[in-house]
């Protein structure tokens, strides 16, 4: 196994002094999962009267997009994505109170959970973390979630997407039940579905009529972005 220090990119000191430089530094700090650095940079940006929406979109989300791309290109691995996600969450804790004043809308609302009979939730948690990092509002129903709960929650909260996860082949049929019940209630066009988990495949997703299949947490975010854009 090789050891590399290619991660933890250095802060872009050369850009210091301009708004663009700060955003660039925020992006870099996020990519390196540098929570202390990002906290300092956000304080600096806010003191400079930078808009929270600009910090979010041009600094943080831009940074997470780069992280997602690097992951897809196999330049970095899941733990590094999670380090960046943590930095994103730390940043959001600082920015969130300001969004209420600024009214920056979320990309969309997603209901997510591990299906009934299954209590494996690590994959689902990763997708939820990434979704929040990408700017979505996430309603996490936890694990062992009955089909009705997915649908009732999505209707009540006006969610655009239901995300379902399963690790056991024996619990995969619950996903089909959710999709069937959405169709029975005439909600299948309005509420999109995405499924994922170790035993799930693209072919299975197509067979049960899911709108998308997320191979991993990063790809799931891309799929959900598309589903929201279509809805």
């Amino acid at each position: 196994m090789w050891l590399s220090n290619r991660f933890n990119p250095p802060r872009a000191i050369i850009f210091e002094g301009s708004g663009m430089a700060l955003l660039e530094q925020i992006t870099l700090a996020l990519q390196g999962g540098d929570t202390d650095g990002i906290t300092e940079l956000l304080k600096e940006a806010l003191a400079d009267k930078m808009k929270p929406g600009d910090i979010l979109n041009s600094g943080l989300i831009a940074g997470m997009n780069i992280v997602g791309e690097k992951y897809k290109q196999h330049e970095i691995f899941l733990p590094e994505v999670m380090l960046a996600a943590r930095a994103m969450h730390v940043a959001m804790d600082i920015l969130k109170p300001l969004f209420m004043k600024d009214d920056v809308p979320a990309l969309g609302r997603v209901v997510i959970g591990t299906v009934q009979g299954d209590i494996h939730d690590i994959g689902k948690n990763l997708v939820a973390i990434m979704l929040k990092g990408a700017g979505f509002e996430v309603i996490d129903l936890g694990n062992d979630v009955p089909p009705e709960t997915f649908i009732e929650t999505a209707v009540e909260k006006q969610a655009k997407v239901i995300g379902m996860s399963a690790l056991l082949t024996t619990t995969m049929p619950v996903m089909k039940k959710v999709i069937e019940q959405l169709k029975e209630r005439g909600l299948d066009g309005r509420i999109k579905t995405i499924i994922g988990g170790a035993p799930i495949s693209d072919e299975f997703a197509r067979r049960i009529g899911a709108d998308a299949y997320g191979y991993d947490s990063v790809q799931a975010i891309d799929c959900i972005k598309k589903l929201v854009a279509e809805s």
Partner: protein
Amino acid sequence: MREVLGFRVDEIVPSRRDTLALQGISAGKEISRNILELYDGAVRLFMECARPAGIVAEISKDDFEAIYEGEGLNEPSTPVADIFRKADNLALFAATIGRGVHDRINALFGNKDFALAGMLDAAASAGVERAADRVEEYFLDNVVSGKMRVVRYSPGYCGWHVSGQKKLFEYLKPEKIGIILRPSCLMEPLKSVSGVLMGGKPEIHFFSDRYPFCSICETHSCRERIESLRRSIHVAEQQVQSTSSNNL
């Protein structure tokens, strides 16, 4: 033979290779210092929180057949059904690393320490397999003849329906080591494994992954296992040849 087994945590330390593989990082990949530090941190927490234990109970083929039948939900044809009659020894087993690691993973997630939580989860998954390895070794050393091999199979995999856990638990009683079965047939603590150990000639475990349910399997881990058995036979044969040559 029915035994409750205790192990030291240092007997089941998850390897870096296995842990990182569960994070999607295969051997030989270039990894960053951040990842190494996360692995080291996860192993430290694992050592602190894991309380490994195992239980193993020999079982006759007829008794196992009734347990394997479970709730009648197995696939029509499975490797387990094809192999167990050919085995010399069978035992039901369960192994766990206890509840502490799971609680720590949840606490880390709650604290937004996602990367370490994910790495500890992977380490825990690898660690519980090591615990099952220890149970398997105990069975091999104490029950199975030296030339035989032991392979384990679990409900929920390879066509053995997860509902088979109910009868397995009734017979084995893993509650003695703190494992309970939820109504959905999943175990608590989550990082636990259970199943059957089958001891016999290595060849009995050879099969092609062409059962209908193999098409939805993402891992095909049976291939690696069978290949490992083939290698072990080859090594054993070479040792015999070498000994014969030396004796001449």
